[in-house]
């Protein structure tokens, strides 16, 4: 009769859900995509939670699940991000990689100093440093580790030296 067939169907549905929760069977996902299937899933997990820890004997308000479900429905579809995974480790082949410093405007100020006894007197004099480029590399390397956004420069040129 239909009632018994219905019962048998449900019994086997519940048995399948029980096995799938334990990772001991596959299940057709459509079986869980019904209100009844979800109720079984929820109750069986509740039982497991409570057996393990009585402070999981929580009854969230019904509105909670409904609210979450509805909010998820209103979310846009999932889009995978475009951040590229690192595929390989390449060293050579990129030349002239130096990215000109945006904070390069100020010239180096040489500070000659001289001592009078124990006192060191600083004496600032504007002197153009001829090879400021090379010095700037050190600053860039320093900011590479310690600097803030715009101060961080790309300073190294791979492929040019020994490893």
């Amino acid at each position, binding site marked *: 009769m239909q009632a018994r067939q219905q019962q048998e169907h449900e019994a086997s549905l519940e048995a399948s859900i029980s096995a799938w929760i334990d990772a001991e069977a596959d299940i057709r996902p459509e079986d869980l995509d019904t209100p009844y299937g979800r109720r079984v899933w929820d109750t069986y997990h509740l039982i497991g939670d409570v057996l393990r820890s009585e402070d999981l004997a929580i009854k969230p308000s019904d509105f909670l699940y409904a609210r979450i479900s509805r909010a998820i429905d209103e979310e846009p579809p999932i*889009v995978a*991000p*475009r*951040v*590229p995974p*690192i*595929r*390989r*480790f*390449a*060293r050579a*082949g*990129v030349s002239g*990689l*130096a*990215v*000109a410093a*945006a*904070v390069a*405007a*100020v*010239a*180096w*100020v*040489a*500070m000659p*100093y001289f001592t009078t006894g124990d006192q*060191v007197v*600083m004496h*600032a004099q504007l002197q153009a*440093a*001829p*090879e400021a480029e*090379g*010095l700037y*590399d*050190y*600053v*860039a*390397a*320093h900011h*590479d*580790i*310690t*600097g*803030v*956004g*715009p*101060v*961080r420069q*790309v*300073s*190294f*040129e*791979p*492929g*040019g*030296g*020994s*490893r």
Partner: protein
Amino acid sequence: MNHPLHDCRPRQLLAPRAGRALVAAALAGSALLAHLPAQAAEPRSPEAIQLLQRMHKAARSLDYAGVYTYQQGNTVLSTQIVHVVDGTGERERVSMLDGQPREYIRHNEITQCLLPDHKVVLKERRDSERFPAVLFDEGLELATHYVLNLHDAAERVAGRKCQVLELEPRDTHRYGYRFCADKETGLPLRAQTVGPEGVLIQIVFNTLQVGSKVAPEALAPAWNTKGWEVVEVPVQEVDLASEGWRIPLPPGYRPLKQVLRPMKAGRQVKQMVVSDGLASMSVFIEAYKESGDQPREAGLMRKGAVSLYRKRIGDHWLTVLGEVPAETVRDLADRTEYVPLAVP
């Protein structure tokens, strides 16, 4: 120490719950107090340290997005930052709005620097952007080397109320700092490096959104990097002390990192980064070469907020630099010794 918690007499504690709360607070407080020097009777020092820690934690654990400007001398640069924490940790996107286009996409300690003009992705290890994560560590030792001061009057930055925290250096080995921390979230909205002449560097948020207003989609880079070359900076860890380098550090500074890295001209240089929690310096050591692209300058120089000192020690070049007073880099270099073990 005169901290009020130390005056608690157990008999005067109230109901057990209040008592437990006091004990809890005392336990939390004493962890901070243990690091304060004896003379730190400055009235609001523990509060100031708590605010610093709150700033540090906010920068690492909250979701936020905004645009900040970096000012040094006549240079003003704008940067956009998006920071989101999800189940995998921290995700961050930093885009330069001025100059050559460039973005840094970070996931925890791996950063990918996107260079669209070269179609290159540079992969590096870095554990956070330095703003707004202004501290290099928990900041527990800062009261030893700075006088901490909290201002009462709130200021407004980026349309938000913030509280000013000042750190005045106790010696001449470092500059001072001033932060304005968002009242609501603790995020630093403004960070200033202050020298004797005044403000040397200022970083300040112009706009800021926090929490659920931050859309994770904003983490997506501006360019499709398919087909770009991926390059990893080959950096090795080194141990300068074991090679014979004796580098005495000024009070409060500890080594953060010691690496061997390639420089732009392709030569290998050793770099040690040291910090007192806020201030930082780099010490570079390389073999002296007669010819080639190695810079020849020696002596003491300043460039904006950066002091740099360079000298030869035997067969090596030593370069010390940082956003610190000029004497600091010079003294460090002058006290450095090279005592290699004799090779049998």
